């Protein structure tokens, strides 16, 4: 009887949780839509500047989120450029070449890197600049490149893990077939395994990009500012969407600015949501195989 009681309680609790969770999601998105939808106009992005002038001729935009969007896009591009080769290569290494002690050691390092809080990554970037200024590069400064570098370190574990997982879950038959055809280990990897694990690797790439797009703690310490316009160069200060939202939330000067914060949040949410959908699509393809 007591067991029955326990079972009933468990079922009731499970139902409550299962109702609560989607309700929370609805509340969050509903709230954002309510407060932000009215501000989703062209003026949100470009302020007073005509959009074509801003897009084509680089006219400076004030009171719009376009520079922040640009900053985020540049960050994503830089992070992808740096992280993909490094992450995929490390993943391949861990899946195919490492063994025994070195494999355990590297795996542990990757896990450790994955567990490092983003604020520490930002602190590291900041300390790096201080160190460089005292030693090698007295002109070093917090900038786009530094942020991209620190974000790359942040998302590297995602890439390494997903690459490794994708390759490790490939059937041995592929490797054996390749070997029987006379291909070297590297040739097997390059020609067969990578192609077969591509969906898994891509989904990891997309998750990494999503993480880089939404992170605020790292960029807070490594070069993002509230007003900078279009990033001029890799060594320039820049704006970014998540920081813009944080900044407006903390110090909006008018109801219009607060509404802009909610609209920007909607934009960021769309970006990360789309990335998630893309990643899921790719993973689904992998699972079908």
């Amino acid at each position, binding site marked *: 009887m007591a067991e029955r009681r326990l079972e009933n309680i468990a079922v009731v609790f499970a139902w409550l949780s299962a109702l609560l969770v989607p309700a929370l999601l609805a509340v969050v998105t509903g709230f954002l839509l309510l407060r932000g939808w009215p501000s989703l106009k062209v003026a949100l992005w470009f302020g007073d500047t005509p959009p074509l002038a801003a897009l084509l001729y*680089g*006219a*400076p935009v*004030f009171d719009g989120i376009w520079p922040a969007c640009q900053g985020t896009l540049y960050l994503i591009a830089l992070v992808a450029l740096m992280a993909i080769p490094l992450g995929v290569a490390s993943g391949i290494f861990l899946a195919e070449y490492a063994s025994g002690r070195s494999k355990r050691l590297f795996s542990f390092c990757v896990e450790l890197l994955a567990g490092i809080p983003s604020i520490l990554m930002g602190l590291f970037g900041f300390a790096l600049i201080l160190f460089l*200024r005292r030693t090698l590069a*007295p002109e070093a*400064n*917090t900038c786009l490149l530094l942020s991209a570098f620190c974000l790359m370190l942040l998302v590297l574990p995602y890439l390494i893990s997903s690459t490794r997982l994708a390759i490790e879950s490939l059937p041995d038959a592929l490797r054996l077939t390749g070997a029987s055809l006379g291909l070297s280990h590297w040739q097997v990897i390059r020609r067969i395994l990578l192609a077969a694990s591509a969906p898994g690797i891509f989904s990891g790439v997309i998750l990494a990009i999503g993480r880089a797009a939404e992170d605020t703690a790292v960029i807070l310490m490594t070069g993002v*500012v*509230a*007003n*900078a*316009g*279009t990033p*001029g160069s890799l060594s*320039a*200060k820049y704006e970014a969407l998540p920081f813009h939202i944080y900044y407006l939330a*903390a*110090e*909006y*000067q008018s109801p219009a600015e607060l509404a802009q914060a909610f609209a920007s949040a909607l934009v960021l949410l769309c970006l990360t949501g789309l990335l998630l959908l893309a990643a899921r699509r790719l993973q689904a393809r992998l699972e079908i195989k």
Partner: protein
Amino acid sequence: MKRFTTRGTRGMTLALICSALLAGAAAAGELDAFAGKKGKIDIAGGTAHIPVMKDAAKHIMQANPEIRISVAAGGSGVGVQKVGEGLVDIGNTGRPLSTEEVAKYGLKSFAFALDGVAVAVSPKNRVANLTAEQVQQIFAGKISNWKSVGGRDAAIHLYTRDEASGTREVFWEKLLKKGVIVETANVVASNGAMKSAVAEDGDAIGYVSIGHLDETIKAPTLDGISPTQENARSGKYPIVRQLYMNTKGTPQGLTAAFITYVMGPDGTAMTAAAGYLPLH
């Protein structure tokens, strides 16, 4: 129709055109210093300065898109540290530099505005006046209910600034007379953040630069004196400070041009529009 083309009308039109040209030239003259230049200016520090800095940056960047100006916050302490370490070109402070800071970094100060620091409460709060002593006791945690000072029966929600803030330092030295700010106070990171927090919270009390006062928050009179810029200028309101731009050594190039611009007629107009008292 012939009647209107008299010499008088032609003269007037000419005068109009001339004055328009002159006005344009005068305005353009301000920004002439930036014509044809390229480069960047990084500004950081005091949050009270930000409206003026943003405005100036906007005008300059619109006149010359080759120049990039970035404005960051952080507070006066950040301003000193960053400009001293060479991380930014101009470090803004809402307090004078200490002798150690000048000696350590070799900084030059340019005061461009007079500002005050006012106690801020929500417009819903019916308290209209506070004595200096009441403010000291509130921030020390000794008075914790609004009804003790004439408000409704509700707990006082304290908001203060982080330690890098020049606004905080001036408030602490001049109004609190270096008294204690209790540790349970909520900490916000800029004047703008203080304003938003106080505007949202009906039982809040904090402090902001007078330039940040608007209809979303209310500044009760201090010992009967209203915290306005006029009273700040005349000396009646005692909690005042100057706003400084600081550079490492003598400013050069674009930085010098920017400082001249902010202290010139255009910049003075922007300073006044932001709610501060220009010093020139």
